[in-house]
């Protein structure tokens, strides 16, 4: 997966990928994370992606933009993305700086994220909607 120390772990849980970011990533690490994750969505035929940012106490504009990009790319590859674990301070700083998450789904923590995805799955909307599966 990643070369070097594990800054991010990407685990498969059924048809969901759980990516936990363990530490603040710089821009190139963020890009590598993006490429790895999008790659693995195809490999594992994932329908849902959860990105856990609970360990981050800061999220810069590049980081939040990359998360939005990942979400959009994942959608094109047939998976719904949920960002989970945004800390209160991070959330407030993000809205103050005008870097929202756009239309990306967010949830309180991993558990909530999984619950959200299973709700989607129950209503059969997961992975639908003209997405191109790779």
């Amino acid at each position, binding site marked *: 997966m990643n070369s070097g120390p594990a800054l991010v772990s990407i685990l498969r849980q059924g048809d969901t990928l759980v990516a936990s970011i363990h530490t603040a990533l710089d821009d190139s690490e963020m890009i590598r994370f993006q490429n790895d994750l999008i790659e693995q969505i195809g490999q594992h035929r994932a329908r849902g992606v959860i990105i856990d940012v609970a360990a981050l106490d800061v999220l810069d504009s590049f980081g939040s933009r990359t998360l939005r990009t990942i979400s959009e790319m994942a959608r094109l590859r047939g998976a719904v993305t949920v*960002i*989970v674990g*945004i*800390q*209160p*301070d*991070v*959330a*407030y700083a*993000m*809205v*103050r700086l005008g870097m*929202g*998450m756009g239309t990306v789904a*967010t*949830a*309180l*923590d991993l558990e*909530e*994220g999984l619950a*959200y995805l299973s709700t989607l799955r129950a209503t059969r909307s997961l992975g639908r909607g003209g997405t191109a599966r790779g």
Partner: protein
Amino acid sequence: MKEDVMEDSSRSEGTQTGEHLLPQLVAHLREHREKLRDEWVSRIRDAHLLEAMTPQEMSAETTSVYDNYVEVLETGSVEALQHYARDLSERIIPRGVETHEVVGIVLLLRDVLARSLFEKYQRDFALLNHILDAYEPAANRIANTVAVSFVDERERVIRQQQDAIRELSTPVLPVRERLLILPIIGVLDSERARQLTEQLLSGIRTHRAKVVVIDITGAPDVDETVANHLVQTVDASRLMGASVIITGLSPTIAQTLVTIGVDLSKMNTIGDLQGGLEEAERLLGYRVTRTEVPEDS
């Protein structure tokens, strides 16, 4: 200045100076204390000042004000009076006594005493001039001191109340599992909006809330800044996975918001708190039903 005046009128009555006249003046005021105080009280009553006070209080307060007044004339030191005026203000401000009343009664006392001086010294105009030279600056200083003390005290009370309002924690109340209510009471400025958002966000994490109802019935006015704070709060809550319902937008506030063009399209708003709670329960999948027979209490 005093020297000039004395030279002017030195031809009349010997060498009496202001310092010599003051004891005479004070003695006069002490001697006619009761009469002058009653005269003062009746003029206060005629002017409809201090109507918040009972006659007993009025009598007690006017006596001490009178004594303090004469003492300041005698000693020239306003410190004791300052202290007394602050103390008096502390007592009467909560009763709704206004600045004009306090200034008014002190000016009335000044006039009453001045008239009694006119009366006493009317035969000797030069001496009267001397007396007034001694009396007027002291009297004006007293009026000044009392007014300033009163205003200071009032400002202190206002500051205290502002601090109290600011420190009033905005409660984040869990009403059901995963449902929080945040009632906003009072003026929302930037500082308070920041505190409020932080409290709400940590409340969302602590209570694992999915829905938050923000009730702004108690917010007197919503301007653009406040509205933008609300939008930020809603966005930040959403980032933490909670959806926000805003309730209690009055017709006036709704009109203001539309007129100033704040984009509230992303906000879920419902008329009143009751409706907001019902919507929140619906979002959370609660169904509240009423038992047919109310249980005995």
